[in-house]
């Protein structure tokens, strides 16, 4: 039973296929006879059949045919709709050449409707299908389409740019092999028209004249007539009084009448209207009305309105009634708007579908990219987090150290003040007591006590000095000199060299304090042990290093037996924290030289 059904289906299927082939042949015959109504009727049947068979190639082909027949009958809206359907089928099938060609046809319809920017957008869509392929002929068609739409909107420079791309392809011997030679004159004709519009008449005349000698053009009466009209117009524009133009334009019209090209006749008539507009208003009106008649034949509202634009002012100037034209103008304008709207609507959904497809692809690509980006992002975030934690730990540690250092510093300062102010004052009080009670001082014992107290007083001051605060700003230089001075007396001469005002500018505050304390230590040591009478302390800068040289003429030290006391140990510690170095040089009885060095 199942088998029987399937055999039935199979039979039906093969029957359909056979019908498809026979119908196909029939339609071709009808179409050749230009019975488009009938052809459309039968093509619908094929469409239905192929839809039932899910034969996408046949569906696409049917839509294409329906579009073509409708176009032949000047049913622009229907043609556009079917081209659009055909385009969608071809696009889905991945036939980019056919898809592009259908879009190009759609663009042509939009151009006919006077929707030039819409036409250009569709053409640009078409370009996407063939760009970067070797379908040079199709590419040239699209480029020309875009150029013409620009030209119609008077963007002649832009138009020239696009048509130049066509010329580049034609000029290339390899690329041009892919192009139907018969098409080349048409491209050149477009170039000529754009140049005429740009006012580059000499160049366009040369192009048209060359074309008239081209064998392909000579064998095609229609295109010969068209080029002749164009040459006539250009020559007239270059020189309105020339003798050739009239003859050329008239011959052009005759040629088009001969091949029965309606659109060609419109163009030739419009040119003649323009030519006679100033010379002979009646003749001009005659050709304008001719153009209108042909436009009505084509049911092309855009062309009708264009010719009306010429007729109305002519009739006005000749004092004729405008009633008919006014009526025609308004109906044409309405119908044009209507068709434009409808086509736009088709185009809009078409555009949406198209965009959606590409968008989906883009989204997919974006998502994968995003995933990868996310991975990198997480990795980067992890690294940054680790670095941050590391930094925070390090920073906290340093901060603790700094806080500790600051605390000791504060404590030192507090003790220093206490020793200086309180202990100093107390000792001073004792001294005044003795002095007041024994005036004048004669008691030797009192004198001894007084001197003892004075030395204690001085010691207390020296201790406190080690911890007083230091100005690390602009006055650091003077502070340092004052320090050296405080260690000198009648017996000990301290000599240094004058420094530039900005010598200490780039040294950090910390290093300034360290250097101050180091010198203090060395000088204290000097007063205690060296028995020196001359001390030289010099500062110099080399690249980014500060070099300090201390020299005295004292008894010196013996490095082998020298015991680094607390003070000099401090010096080493400080230099270590400054990343500096120190070098002692001494021989017994020959004085002491100390060189220290640190980076700014």
């Amino acid at each position: 039973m199942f088998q029987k059904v399937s055999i039935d289906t199979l039979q039906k299927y093969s029957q359909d296929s056979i019908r498809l082939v026979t119908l196909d042949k029939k339609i071709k015959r009808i179409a050749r006879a230009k019975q488009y109504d009938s052809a459309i009727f039968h093509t619908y049947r094929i469409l239905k059949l192929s839809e039932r068979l899910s034969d996408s190639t046949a569906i696409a082909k049917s839509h294409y045919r329906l579009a073509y027949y409708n176009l032949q009958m000047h049913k622009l809206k229907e043609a556009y709709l079917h081209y659009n359907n055909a385009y969608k089928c071809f696009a889905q099938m991945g036939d980019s050449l056919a898809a592009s060609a259908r879009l190009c046809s759609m663009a042509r319809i939009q151009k006919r409707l006077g929707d030039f920017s819409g036409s250009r957008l569709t053409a640009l869509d078409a370009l996407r299908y063939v760009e970067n392929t070797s379908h040079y002929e199709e590419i040239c068609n699209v480029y020309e389409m875009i150029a013409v739409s620009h030209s119609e909107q008077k963007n002649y420079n832009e138009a020239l740019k696009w048509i130049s791309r066509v010329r580049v392809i034609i000029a290339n011997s390899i690329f041009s092999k892919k192009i139907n030679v018969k098409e080349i004159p048409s491209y050149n004709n477009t170039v000529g028209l754009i140049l005429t519009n740009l006012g580059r008449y000499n160049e366009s005349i040369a192009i048209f004249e060359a074309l008239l000698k081209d064998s392909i053009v000579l064998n095609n009466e229609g295109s010969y007539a068209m080029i002749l009209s164009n040459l006539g117009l250009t020559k007239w524009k270059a020189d309105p009084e020339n003798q050739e133009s009239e003859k050329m334009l008239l011959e052009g019209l005759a040629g088009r009448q001969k091949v029965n090209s309606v659109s060609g006749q419109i163009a030739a008539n419009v040119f003649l209207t323009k030519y006679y507009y100033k010379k002979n208003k009646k003749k001009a009106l005659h050709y304008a009305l001719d153009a209108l008649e042909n436009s009505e034949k084509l049911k092309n509202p855009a062309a009708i309105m264009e010719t009306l634009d010429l007729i109305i002012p002519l009739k006005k100037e000749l004092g004729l009634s405008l009633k008919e034209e006014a009526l025609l103008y308004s109906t044409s304008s309405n119908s044009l708007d209507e068709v434009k709207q409808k086509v736009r609507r088709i185009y809009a959904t078409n555009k949406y579908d198209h965009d959606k497809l590409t968008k989906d692809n883009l989204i997919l690509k974006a998502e994968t990219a995003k995933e990868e980006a996310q991975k990198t992002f997480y990795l980067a975030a992890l690294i940054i987090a680790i670095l941050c934690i590391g930094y925070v730990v390090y920073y906290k540690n340093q901060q603790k150290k700094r806080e500790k250092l600051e605390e000791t510093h504060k404590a030192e300062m507090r003790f220093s003040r206490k020793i200086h102010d309180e202990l100093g004052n107390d000792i001073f009080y004792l001294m005044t007591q003795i002095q007041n009670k024994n005036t004048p001082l004669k008691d030797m014992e009192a004198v001894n006590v007084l001197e003892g107290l004075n030395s204690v007083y001085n010691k207390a001051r020296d201790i406190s000095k080690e911890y007083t605060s230091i100005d690390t700003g602009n006055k650091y230089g003077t502070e340092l000199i004052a320090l050296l001075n405080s260690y000198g007396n009648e017996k000990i001469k301290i000599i240094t060299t004058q420094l530039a005002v900005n010598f200490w500018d780039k040294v950090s505050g910390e290093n300034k304090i360290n250097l101050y304390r180091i010198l203090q230590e060395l000088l204290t040591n000097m007063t205690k042990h060296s028995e020196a009478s001359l001390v030289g302390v010099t500062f110099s800068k080399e690249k980014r290093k500060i070099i300090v040289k201390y020299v005295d003429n004292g008894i010196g030290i013996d490095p082998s037996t020298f015991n680094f006391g607390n003070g000099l140990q401090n010096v080493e510690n400080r230099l270590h924290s400054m990343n500096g170095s120190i070098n002692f040089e001494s021989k017994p009885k020959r004085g002491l030289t100390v060189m220290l060095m640190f980076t700014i």
Partner: protein
Amino acid sequence: MIYSKIFVAEDLDSNNLGMVATLKKMGIATIEQSQFCDNALLKIKKAVIDFEPFEVLISDLCFNATHGKKNIRSGQELISEVKKIQPNIKVIVFSVEDKQSIIESLMEDQQIDAYVCKGLNGLKELENAIEALSKNKKYTCPVATASLQQKNILELDIYEQKLLELLAHGYKQSEISELFKKKLITPNSVRSIETSISKLKDSFNASTTPQLVYMASSLGLI
């Protein structure tokens, strides 16, 4: 004339005793004192209002008293406040401080009249200061003077360094003069160069020029 009305702002009461005794010995009739800056300022203000102003203020720099609310914490602040009320008052700072920058700032910026360091001869120096002030003179005790003038240190300027360097290279005074003239270094006369060299000899305690050069080079100055 010797003063009749002096105010003493001194941290330690015990010190005041010695000072007051010294001042009384000098024959000063009215001596008032305070251990706190705020209190001192009030008393000075009152005296101005009563048309019996103090003639001299003797102030310490450090005040360590810990009780009570204090607006003024240091001698420097007290001096500026007092000078706002009574600009013509004479000010003597009497302190253990001998740091050059502090003394200089007081003398230059705050325009005090005398600075005396406490120490072995502190009270004697205070007497000297008051006497100098009464003769309309400024005064600094020898310790403060030494600190201010920085007599114990010699700073060689570029001219002196260059001079020593040329001497070390065996140039004669006349040759140095010529070279300086060529290089537009002044002073460059033979006479002034000779003066400079003898000044350096004095500073270094050197008796001859070779000794001077030797000392300078061994001290790393050239």
